[in-house]
């Protein structure tokens, strides 16, 4: 090994020794790669084009949720309402369309529902100083109730053909995946390269210090929940087009757990002040690939549930290691 290589290696080793967060993140990254490498060797067709597209489609279905959740986690909050918001938005847009409404207006209505719920969460938490967990749990129940009322607990079907433009493909890549990637890139740039974006981290690190420093913490908190709402509405549009229907139960119960786990694997913390969009996307890809491998390997449902529980516990421990 030459002198430059030795210096580089020594530098990396020093950073790993001194910075606990980088050490933990590096180990998590290496571990994730090893696990996927081991599992992928067991699975036939793992690297086939079709499987890659399938995985990307699965990622984008809940990916918009994880992007919004990352922003909220960075400021030290939580948003549990997104699954219900997606269902309420979808049922409203679906009801409007089967009643003869225009599909473009319906898409805007779906997006608006996301914004409205983001607004409600933002006002309650930022202005009202209410506890994010309780507020977003309440809006989850409220949105689920709205979805059930609008759909009469039945499936809304018969959406106009034009609406399925949101399920079209460019080549072999679904439009939803492309929009998700663009949204991730834009949000990443916003958080890392803009003054407002960097304020998110300062608010999450210590809200009092941020406020004393002159940051409008109310505005930043409100903005985070609005972003989460917008992304929930966007996700609802693509999910409705993918399923071709709208129901009050179209988003599963485990989505929230999976998404929080993905964000924490990607570098976010439940304590706030940390996180990055690309990390969350990679975390979501990891969670999805694990499930994909289990399916392709035909691993028993019960074993899969147990392993998923262990993964979530490990993720929480990772968050603790980063923080202390």
């Amino acid at each position: 090994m030459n002198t430059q290589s030795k210096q580089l290696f020594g530098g990396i080793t020093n950073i790993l020794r001194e910075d606990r967060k980088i050490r933990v993140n590096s180990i998590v990254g290496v571990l994730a790669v090893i696990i996927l490498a081991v599992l992928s060797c067991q699975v036939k067709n793992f690297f086939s084009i079709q499987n890659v597209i399938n995985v990307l489609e699965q990622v984008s279905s809940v990916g918009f949720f994880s992007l919004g959740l990352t922003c909220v986690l960075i400021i030290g909050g939580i948003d549990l309402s997104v699954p219900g918001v997606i269902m309420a938005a979808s049922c409203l847009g679906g009801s409007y369309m089967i009643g003869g409404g225009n599909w473009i207006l319906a898409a805007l209505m779906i997006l608006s529902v996301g914004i409205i719920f983001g607004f409600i969460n933002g006002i309650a938490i930022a202005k009202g100083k209410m506890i994010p967990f309780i507020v977003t749990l309440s809006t989850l129940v409220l949105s689920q109730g709205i979805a059930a009322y609008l759909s009469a607990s039945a499936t809304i079907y018969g959406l106009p053909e034009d609406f399925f433009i949101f399920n079209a493909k460019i080549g072999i890549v679904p439009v939803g995946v492309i929009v998700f990637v663009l949204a991730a890139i834009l949000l990443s740039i916003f958080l890392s390269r803009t003054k407002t974006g960097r304020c998110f981290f300062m608010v999450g690190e210590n809200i009092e210090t941020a406020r004393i420093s002159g940051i409008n913490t109310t505005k930043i908190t409100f903005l985070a929940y609005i972003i989460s709402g917008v992304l929930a509405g966007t996700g609802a549009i693509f999910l409705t087009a993918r399923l071709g229907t709208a129901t009050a139960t179209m988003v599963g119960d485990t989505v929230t757990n999976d998404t929080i786990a993905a964000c924490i694997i990607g570098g976010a913390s439940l304590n706030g002040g940390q996180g990055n969009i690309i990390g969350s996307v990679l975390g979501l890809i990891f969670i999805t690939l694990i499930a994909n491998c289990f399916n392709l390997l035909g691993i028993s449902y019960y074993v899969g549930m147990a392993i998923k529980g262990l993964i979530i516990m490990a993720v929480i421990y990772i968050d603790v290691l980063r923080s202390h």
Partner: protein
Amino acid sequence: MKKLFALLLALCMVFSLAACAGSSGDAKTEDTATEDSATEDSAAEDTAATEDAAASGEREKVVIGASFNSLMNDVFTVSQTLMETWAANPLNEDDPYVDLTILVADGDTTKQISDVNDLINKGCDAILIDPVDSTAVEPAIQACKNAGIPCVTYNRPLSDEVKTRPDVEVRIGAYEQGYDTAKYCFEIMKEDGIEDINIILCNGETRDDNSVQRALGVAAACEEYGANIVAQLPCDWDPTVVAELLPAALEGNPDTNCVYVATDGMLSGVQSSLEDIDRWAPYGDENHMYIAACDLFEEGYNNVASGYIDADALMDVVGMISNAYQSAFALIRGEEVEPLVNTTGATYTAANYNDADMVSDQALWWKWKK
């Protein structure tokens, strides 16, 4: 640092075990059926092996994937047991062995579509789907069509709005179940001199057409016998929901003398609600509440035998899974199949529950419980 390494090693061990776990239900399949096939053959190699095996008189082996909507009650767990049992020990002489993979969607429509895509990617020769949602399952069926893989749906019927139909639909005669169980119950009540029948319907899940069809069957019987439906409760196949909704419905309709239960899986909720008002009593007792149920779980059969339930329409789970498998085998062989297969069962009452043809392993599907 040491603790971190210990955790990492533990996780590596867990995932290594997962990687070695193999297909669900396949351990038994592989033990009994891998004398002539390796676990990692591709679908093309399996076909070649199938042809060779057929030529030499040995059983062929096919790859089948099953997408379950959930494992929430005995109907689903017994369905799983039957599939796994017949995968390793074929039911009929000319049935192939099955390399079976079962994926469970946990009531999540989006996950079911992903599961079916994963089964397609796995290279299945046929895919069986028990839909989470009778309408929203269409993308999954379309994916099978696009991949050229035969698709059989079973249990929950597809709604008429689904344009892309599977190759075969195996249904369970839900309308007949609802109609027959209500009819038998009303006849008993009429024989007992009860003219005014007031019935509460404890329905299943509204996005499950089985629930809708059963309720329609009950409604038809109500019209025929002049019974009044005083309340319809959307119970989501969940006994907890029954326990929440039924007491209020009974309180609001004190003249109720009959309860319809969409599945025996909800019986515990009905029992607790009736016990609270001293109406959980066997036939002949003055506090007896007439009950018409469906599916004939083990507790349903026992309650028919002991007089608490007056009529219980069997869901022929054994017949349904057998029909699903036979349809899949026929499609794989390229044979002509009926696009719609209806599997109906008898209605059990105090008069016939012990008859010879009513207690066979074919009829009492819960005997297959592990």
